[in-house]
């Protein structure tokens, strides 16, 4: 038996494979064609205090080996989440991590506190959504602002606090240290990279918001690099993501120093991507003669 289980600052997962925020909604849609109970954990789409409309369409376009999105924070608000989605997710006996966004520190704190009271398994602070004009972005690219929001939320909750970092910064390790010093129990990286496309027939941007977030295989080398850099810089566990499509990709992140990984854009290509990666990881470890996933974490010879 290969031991795939991991402990993320108290969040016990039977394997290191989660689904990335925003690409899996609250799992309901995918539950029809994939077995959620096999996942390491589910991370929900961002939840805010009140219902949000999100950005104007078009919200998506394709790029070489990637996609650009500008969904914005469309969601029904934390109350509706707790009423409708959390009970559903609880039915699968896997950790439920809730991605939280807000316009200001107060909103982050209020939403996180509600979730903590409801005993979700973890709160993931989305301090890095490039698609929200008000607030959001500033937190993710300024180390002082990151520290402020993290320490405010940390004081307000009693469940593990995950901070999701933006890759759109000069020095990712500065953000990481700042988040950890302020109380982050786990770091998630990376969120999407700011990008833009232009339709050369209509002379219009591909997205209504002009710029949006790039995800998918195209950004994987950037994500692996940042995970590796951050793994050298801080002690907390890292959830690695960015362009993971198959088990080998996940192994790259683990070798770079991630304790767990998340599958995002690949869900759109292959709704069973996460499940296939779990199997693939097991096969990989067996093939190399390892007995537990922890044995390869951070083992890149760099």
């Amino acid at each position, binding site marked *: 038996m290969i031991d795939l289980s991991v402990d993320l600052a108290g969040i016990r997962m039977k394997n290191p494979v989660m689904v990335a925020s925003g*690409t899996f909604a609250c799992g309901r849609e995918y539950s029809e064609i994939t077995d959620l109970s096999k996942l390491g954990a589910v991370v929900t789409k961002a939840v805010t205090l009140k219902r949000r*409309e999100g950005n104007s369409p078009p*919200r998506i376009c394709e790029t070489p080996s990637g996609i650009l999105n500008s969904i914005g924070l469309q969601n029904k608000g934390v109350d509706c989440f707790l009423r409708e989605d959390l009970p559903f997710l609880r039915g699968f006996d896997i950790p439920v991590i809730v991605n939280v966004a807000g316009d200001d520190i107060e909103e982050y704190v209020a939403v996180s506190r509600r979730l903590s009271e409801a005993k979700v398994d973890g709160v993931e602070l989305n301090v890095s959504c490039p698609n929200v004009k008000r607030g959001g972005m500033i937190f993710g690219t300024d180390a002082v602002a990151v520290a402020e929001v993290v320490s405010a939320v940390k004081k307000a909750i009693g469940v593990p606090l995950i901070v999701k970092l933006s890759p759109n910064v000069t020095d990712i390790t500065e953000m990481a240290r700042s988040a950890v010093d302020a109380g982050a129990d786990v770091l998630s990286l990376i969120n999407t990279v700011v990008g833009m496309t232009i339709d050369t027939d209509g002379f219009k941007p591909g997205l209504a918001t002009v710029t949006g977030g790039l995800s*998918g*295989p195209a950004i994987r080398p950037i994500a692996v690099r940042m995970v590796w850099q951050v793994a050298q810089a801080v002690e907390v566990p890292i959830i690695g993501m960015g362009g993971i499509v198959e088990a080998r990709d996940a192994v790259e992140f683990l070798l770079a120093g991630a304790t767990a990984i998340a599958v995002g854009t690949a869900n759109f290509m292959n709704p069973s991507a996460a499940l296939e990666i779990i199997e693939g990881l097991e096969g990989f470890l067996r093939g190399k003669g390892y007995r537990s996933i922890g044995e390869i974490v951070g083992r890149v010879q760099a």
Partner: protein
Amino acid sequence: MHRVKARVESNAKVVHGVHRLRLSSSEIALEAEPGQFVHVLCGENRDYILRRPFSVHRVQNGSFDLLIQVVGKGTTYLSQLESGDALDIMGPIGRGFEFTGNFEKSLLVAGGIGVAPLVFLAERLREDGKETHFLYGAATREGLVCLEDLSTVVQKVFSVTEDGSFGYEGLLTEFFGEAFQEYNPDRIFACGPEEMLRKVAESTAGTVPCQVSLERKMACGIGACLSCVCRTREGYRRVCVDGPVFDASEIIW
């Protein structure tokens, strides 16, 4: 909704740039309703990574057809498939046309490749014994790819081509009023370019119920990612699962 590895039964070039793909899947063939679509993985490619949505065009016993216009990479890939190839397909997906209501005469309005789901709908309407007329526009005679099929399914086809090579000359929307007058329908079902749908919707507003099938770029195709929304009176709604067919009166164009 299912995810299947469907086998290509046949791939026929209908006219230049339009292919009819027959795919075997009894689940999808059995469950599909007119206006629903399937979400297709166009190869194991990592260059363009999203699936592509296509309306269910017709169903047979154990298989169904797609009618595909070749416009880019994904459709080029599909057009080159050969019998026996396998295709990763999710479906049937979405809210199709609502045609069980109380009405007598319908007018189906198809612009270009928008004809794909309307052929399926027309077949069902005939089974239901409804009187069905068809307003069908394309750039050229060649573009009216389903004309022969339709002739046996609907009462009358009103054809319009932009170059006048068949039927009336001009844009379909220029003749909508005339066709409406001629057939006097109490239901409209439309599929085609959004500009056409908007005009049709505006012409019918407040007169007869009109349903339109919308297109949006889609990522997940199953309601999870919120990338495919359109603006409606109830806020943004997902074209993939709240549509693709909407009551025209709901849409804010």
